[in-house]
């Protein structure tokens, strides 16, 4: 045991570790750029068009990961509450938007509504409704159950798990087990010519990226430039001190929970338009949020952005650039990404000790 410990902290071991890390990062990059044998696209040098599309897919997926995970990390950073119901909130926001949209436009055909039937307002109003409903629900959960268990992190996490069990079962009862999706407005649902390598790219994904950027910028301005944001940043560092300064920290907690939950709802509406809403989607999005914040560092907005980028690029490139017989294994790359980050920085890239 002692020999092992001595070895693990020795200089040689560190060098070996660094070397391994460089190989693990460099090999996939070289593979995608120059080799890519047996994949459906071939290497990036020989097929820049599909490389560019995969890159854009990764970036736009990252935007959606960021929207959802930023809410998660905002709540955690300030209150140390791990909201395990974040995935259920995502799904709930999507379902509310779906119902509002169907209420406005009608049920549509057997495959639901098509984008030509939906105007911009008939997507934006459901978006606002979904976000507002989830924000209210999150605030309710925080006030009823979380607030008086301050400081008991595990108990709070268990409470949110209980809420997620109940929500998942109730959503199955009310919205059914069949996958449904929210229709994009006709305005978005088309291809645009990017004039680079002849890529025709879908506008909806660019809209997602735009929303992700806008939300990121908005959150950054809110946290850096406003009084509430300053209180939140101070609270992340020292809650007791902020409270002692006469600031109503409970109000700040409520605001953070409201905004964090609303972001899960916004993510759910985008996710429900981009993919679909079904039982089990909540688990996937809880996983995505957890991976993003574990990689980036809990409670850090910049970390969430980096984590979302890494996860989005990894999943999309793994799915596209594994040899065709092995594409099923792409999920392993999520694990490898997580493993590398945890091995190098156990608290995540931008994580700080509590």
């Amino acid at each position: 045991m002692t020999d092992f410990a001595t070895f693990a902290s020795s200089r040689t071991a560190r060098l070996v570790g660094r070397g391994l890390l460089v190989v693990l990062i460099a090999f996939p990059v070289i593979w995608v750029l120059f080799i890519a044998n047996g994949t459906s696209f071939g290497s990036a040098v020989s097929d820049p068009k599909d490389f560019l599309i995969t890159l854009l897919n990764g970036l736009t997926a990252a935007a959606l990961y960021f929207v959802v995970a930023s809410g998660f990390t905002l709540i955690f950073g300030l209150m140390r509450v791990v909201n395990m119901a974040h995935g259920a909130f995502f799904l709930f926001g999507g379902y509310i938007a779906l119902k509002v949209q169907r209420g406005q436009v009608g049920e549509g055909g057997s495959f639901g509504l098509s984008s030509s039937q939906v105007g911009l307002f008939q997507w934006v109003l459901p978006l606002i409704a979904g976000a507002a409903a989830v924000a209210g629900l999150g605030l309710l959960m925080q006030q009823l159950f979380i607030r008086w268990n301050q400081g008991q992190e595990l108990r709070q996490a268990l409470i949110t798990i209980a809420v997620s069990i109940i929500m998942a079962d109730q959503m199955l009862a009310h919205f059914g087990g069949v996958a449904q999706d929210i229709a994009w407005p006709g305005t978005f649902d088309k291809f645009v010519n990017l004039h680079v390598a002849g890529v025709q790219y879908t506008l909806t994904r660019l809209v997602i990226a735009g929303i992700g950027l806008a939300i990121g910028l908005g959150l950054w301005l809110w946290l850096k430039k406003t009084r509430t944001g300053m209180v939140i940043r101070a609270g992340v560092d020292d809650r007791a001190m902020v409270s002692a300064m006469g600031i109503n920290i409970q109000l700040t907690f409520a605001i953070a929970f409201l905004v964090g939950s609303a972001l899960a709802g916004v993510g759910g509406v985008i996710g429900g338009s981009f993919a679909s809403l079904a039982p089990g989607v909540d688990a996937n999005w809880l996983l995505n949020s957890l991976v993003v914040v574990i990689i980036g560092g809990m409670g850090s907005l910049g970390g969430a952005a980096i984590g979302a980028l890494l996860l989005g690029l990894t999943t999309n490139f793994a799915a596209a650039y594994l040899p065709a017989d092995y594409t099923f294994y792409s999920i392993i790359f999520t694990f490898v990404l997580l493993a590398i980050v945890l091995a190098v920085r156990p608290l995540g890239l931008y994580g700080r000790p509590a």
Partner: protein
Amino acid sequence: MSARRPTASLDRGTAAVLVAIAILAPLIFNTYWIGTLLTQMLFLGIVAASLIFLSAYGGMVSLAQVALYGIAGFAIGNLTTNGNTKGLNLGWTPLAAIPVALAITIGLGLLFGALSSRSVGIYFLMITLTFSVIANLFFGQVTSLSGFGGISGIPAPGFIGNVDHHPDRLYYLALVLALLVYALLRYIARTPFGLTLQGIRDDPVRMSSLGYNVTLHRTLAFGFASFIAAIGGVLFAYWNGHIDPATIGLGATIDVLVVAVIGGLSRLEGAWLGALVFVLINNYAQRIGFVSDRFHTLIGVVFLVIVLLSPDGLMGLWGRLGDLRRRGERPGQAPTGGSERGSGELEPTV
């Protein structure tokens, strides 16, 4: 918070009566109870015990136990089935497959442990949860090992025979293993390794400065708990004869957490008590009119109420009742049980 000690709160008489009932159960209960409810209670209890062991003695609440249990089950399935199903269909004899399945699970458990054991508390919970969801997606996507349909027709070893015809054989095997697991976990807790682990739970910084390798002890404890979870997984594979990714999905992960929390996260006995309550709710709640198909909502509500009211679970309630009884017998004497200190606190030591 660091004073929480796992205590044996069942006195010997109660324990002897419970074991006697368990041994005589096939004479008392009908086949449905033995083959479905009680066997399920025993192997679910084993998995939950691996979670409670890590939580009570190591201060680590792991959500990866169901993934490890599933990995053992999928390994058994791939090794022993012979054609006509998904997976590798290697067609080994069941007994030869058991050590290999356990070894694979322990190996992966050590890897998971090495990656997560530098984190504590809520971080550890989150990291192990991601392992669990990734394992579920892995078996769902990798069709050469399972795919969504899963592996069917997993044969049990010859001495168990057909589980449907001889439910009591698998029941007794599960009972013996559950008792062994319980005894082993209690024994490990008293070895130097177990004592060091409890020291690390209470004060990792001090243990580290005393020269103990904190991360290594946590990793080894995780590897050991994955061995326990794997036993439960092998039993599950024989009991169900079929395993698919839904078996280890987020729902199943949370189910085992619910079992452990209902029983009590700080007492090993709670694993089987929680499992019994869970299995009964799972099987009988549907017969209650207003519950019918929404028994998961009922489980969620029960879970929520227990977390809010008694963080030590039912074993915590039992301990507090015991304290009340003792106080009644000897008036004026303050309760000395460990449960008093534990009540209201659920935090693993950070």
